[in-house]
């Protein structure tokens, strides 16, 4: 058994571990965060950000990098450090720009856009307009009301776990049972949301 707490990752190993699931992935995420945490101080010095803003810029950087690595958008043309540094600088500049234009929040990653990009026009435009009408805050509240089990099922699937992996992790009988339960949870969420909306 490898002690992941003491594994020293090179870039290749890091990318591989981030694409795995559960413990190795979690460890790799934390290792990636820890490895370049000094960027926060640099953000404070170079861009005169306060600690909270520099932390937000850095953690958003790590989250975006993880997402890109997992979705194989990072093509290893530079080291992970250089890649992170570039994203971090952009986040800091973005943050300053938003602050000077009196917008309070830093740019958030938009998982919605990934799915939207899969649809061709003109259907895409219709869906985009409908999404803009959706009340995301209400949806978030209703997601909480679906219960811990549903939340966990949906979260694991959204993170990239297969139904089989979820079945193993949450001790379901089979992947089919997971799929049925997961779709029921989504249906429940829709009913809760529609009931409140109407």
């Amino acid at each position, binding site marked *: 058994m*490898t002690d992941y707490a*003491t594994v*020293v990752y090179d870039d290749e190993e890091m990318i591989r571990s981030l694409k795995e699931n559960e413990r190795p992935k979690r460890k790799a995420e934390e290792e990636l965060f820890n490895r370049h945490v000094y960027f926060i101080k640099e953000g404070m010095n170079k861009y005169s950000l306060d600690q909270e803003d520099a932390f937000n810029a850095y953690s958003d950087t790590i989250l975006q990098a993880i997402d890109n690595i997992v979705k194989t958008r990072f093509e290893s043309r530079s080291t992970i450090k250089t890649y992170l540094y570039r994203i971090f600088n952009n986040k800091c500049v973005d943050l300053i720009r938003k602050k000077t234009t009196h917008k309070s929040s830093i740019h958030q990653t938009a998982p919605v856009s990934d799915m939207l990009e899969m649809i061709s026009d003109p259907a895409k435009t219709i869906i985009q307009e409908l999404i803009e009408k959706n009340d995301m805050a209400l949806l978030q509240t209703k997601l909480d009301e679906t219960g811990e089990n549903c939340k966990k099922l949906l979260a694991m699937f959204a993170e990239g776990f297969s139904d089989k992996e979820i079945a193993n992790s949450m001790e379901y009988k089979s992947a089919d049972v997971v799929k049925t339960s997961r779709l029921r949870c989504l249906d429940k969420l829709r009913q809760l949301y529609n009931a409140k909306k109407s």
Partner: protein
Amino acid sequence: MDNIEYIEGYFKGNHDAAQKKDFEKKILEDALFAEEVAFYISANGVIQEQLQKEKKQRFREIYEQQKVISIKQPVTSIWKYLAAACVIVAVLLTTWFFSSAKNSPRQLADTYLQQNWQTLPVTMGKPDVLQTGIQFFNSGNLPGALNVFESLVKTNPENNAAEKYAGIVSLRLGDYDKALKYFTMLEADTNLYSNPGKFYKAITLMERNKSGDEDAARLLLKQVKDGNLEGKTEAAEWLKKF
């Protein structure tokens, strides 16, 4: 629920070109279906955002822990810098003093010990037994540290970090046979990405300096150098000086 499965199939890439066309046509012709698709994407976005929030919270906890450690130990940090400065001065003096003499294996091992094994790296994260041992070591409680690392090795013989640290503490305590035992166990661990076991065994033999140890250490260093193993830079340098 059938529609949800159908929608999910589309976004998972299970549909062929014709099915995709049908799907998008249905969006244009069936307002209720379009709403379901928009809901599916929105729900997915909310779930993903929740996940990101949780990860960010985890990062915050790690970061806060690091801040607590650095606030709690300002004096220690100063002493660490002073200790490091002392080591540098000592090394400079030693280098100057012995500049004309050839370095003996014992001196090389001593210098390595002084430069690398006065403190062990503290890993950020939730405190565990390994970290307790490291804290004992760094505070100078070597027997306490050895107890912790040995009990860890006993309960989990595959814990390579505990093996490594048990070896280092034994070496610092002058128990060379025990150090060799743990470094041999470490060397045998094939799970490690980078295994310093062989190099550490060479250092122990150089430090013990019994009859035959120098030859055995030289052989190990050569294997480290030729095998491109951890410690190869030092090994190459030392082999020249032997």
